[in-house]
């Protein structure tokens, strides 16, 4: 029974990252992961209390724009497993889950950065296979992507299931702190590449005003992103209604596409 539970927990760890980044059904949000882990471990109440704690910690932590965030789902899963294995007292279980889960979840940042780096090579290899006309091979190469990401969560989970939390702590102890810190820092700097790439394709020069407004409202006024989105929508709505009146709807789709292409060149210089 314990072996089956261990295997199911590792399988769930493998699946949850793939689902979060793909189908978005079970996700890796603590509440849902905790519920499934509760079913596996046969202790829904303890599992949900731990999951609820992590879920509220994770609120507002969104991995958007290619950013790496602490994996609270991984923290929840490992926390629930170790806690239910070691104690039957709910308050004690919560403490154990936090003590084990948080460092593992933090390790998730480094592994996520590593996974995204490795996937550059997957993309290159697949494109090479395509240009050689090996279409079947290309399809197979793509599957390395999910495999890598699945392992980024399944491996730490497997280590925790097999050795408890000691090994994770050992790894975090052996690797120099400046190195793990450095990777965490890189993880919080790298979204800049995605943002800068996205900006290459957008009319930045034309609408620099909007970029600045968004920045100021977020950096100085600390308005949550949703409020800023509504503000952005207000500007967009105004522009849209004002211009819809003027524009005659005579042009063709072809003209619209070339316009978009011209713009692309404009701010690409």
């Amino acid at each position, binding site marked *: 029974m314990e072996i089956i539970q261990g295997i199911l927990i590792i399988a769930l760890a493998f699946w949850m990252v793939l689902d979060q980044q793909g189908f978005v059904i079970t996700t890796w949000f603590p*509440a849902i992961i905790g519920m499934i882990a509760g079913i596996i471990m046969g202790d829904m109440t303890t599992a949900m209390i731990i999951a609820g704690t992590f879920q509220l910690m994770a609120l507002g932590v969104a991995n958007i724009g290619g950013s790496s965030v602490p994996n609270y789902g991984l923290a929840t899963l490992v926390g629930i497993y170790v806690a239910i294995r070691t104690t039957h007292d709910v308050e004690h279980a919560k403490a154990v889950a936090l003590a084990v889960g948080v460092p593992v979840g933090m390790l998730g940042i480094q592994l996520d950065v590593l996974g995204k780096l490795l996937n550059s090579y997957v993309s290159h290899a697949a494109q090479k296979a395509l240009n050689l006309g090996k279409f079947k091979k290309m399809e197979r190469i793509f599957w390395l992507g999910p495999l890598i990401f699945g392992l980024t969560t399944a491996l730490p989970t497997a280590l925790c299931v097999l050795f408890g939390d000691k090994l994770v702590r050992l790894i975090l102890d052996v690797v120099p702190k400046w190195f793990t810190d450095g990777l965490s820092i890189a993880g919080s700097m790298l979204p800049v*590449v995605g943002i*800068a790439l996205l900006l290459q394709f957008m*009319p930045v020069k034309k609408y620099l005003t909007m970029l600045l407004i968004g920045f100021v409202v977020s950096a100085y006024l600390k308005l949550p992103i949703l409020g800023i989105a509504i503000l952005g929508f207000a500007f967009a709505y105004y522009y849209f209604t004002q211009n819809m009146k003027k524009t005659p709807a005579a042009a063709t789709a072809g003209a619209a*596409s070339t316009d978009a292409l011209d713009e692309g060149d404009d701010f690409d210089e």
Partner: protein
Amino acid sequence: MSEKTSDAVTKKDVRKAAIRYMFMACNTFNYENQQAPAVVYGLSKVLRKIHKKDEDYKASLNNHFNYFNTTTWMANLLLGASVAMEEKDGIKSKDAVQAFKTGMMGPLAGIGDTLVWVLYPTIMGSIAGYMGLQGNPTGAIIWLLLNVFFFFFRVELFDLGHTSGLKLITALGDKLNVFTEAASIMGLTVIGALIPSVVKMTIPIAFKTGKVSLPIQTEILDKIMPALLPAVLTFVVYKLLASKKFSVTQIIFMVIGLALVCSFFGILGV
């Protein structure tokens, strides 16, 4: 047309493409072309039906290997319409497809990320997390069921993009430009806000003279401008990319190298 250059694309092919893309979405995510491999994987089967000639097929897929990144839920609409474009004009549509995808992905990412990754998980997370604290899984179950509903909704979105994406574009004509511009306005506002909230850099050093300690980050940098370092970094990376002197991979390794060196000397902190 004298010879048959493509097979008819059925509804089943479109659904299959939708599900293939939705599975892969960010599972081949890399810092270089981001979601592009997933787009290629998703569309590879349906495009093979459209492009019978190997050369056309290669050209089309190579086109889809170009940088692509938007909210995956929104991408379905774009990719559905892209398939329809290639179906209609074959490989000639390549540039139009690329222009359409890059024109729409930024604005849609700004809107989509807020809705899908900020608003939805915040609301459901608060409810499910609060119920969870009392040992109650109901909130989590509701969240899961909503996700299942959205899954099918997204498949429909791909279908909608395929059947009416083009019609929509043709009908809107010039108005589409107004829409793209309006969406860019909203997108850029959100991206402007993303820079200080997603990119994080902190200098933990403090000047010490006698008993007086002057932390650089809170007392100097933040006084000049909050999120000064992320703003500078964004500008530098933007310019490096625009100069085309370095590949994206090189820039990524530069950022990682910088982070490791700064961490070693304690210039940047977590």
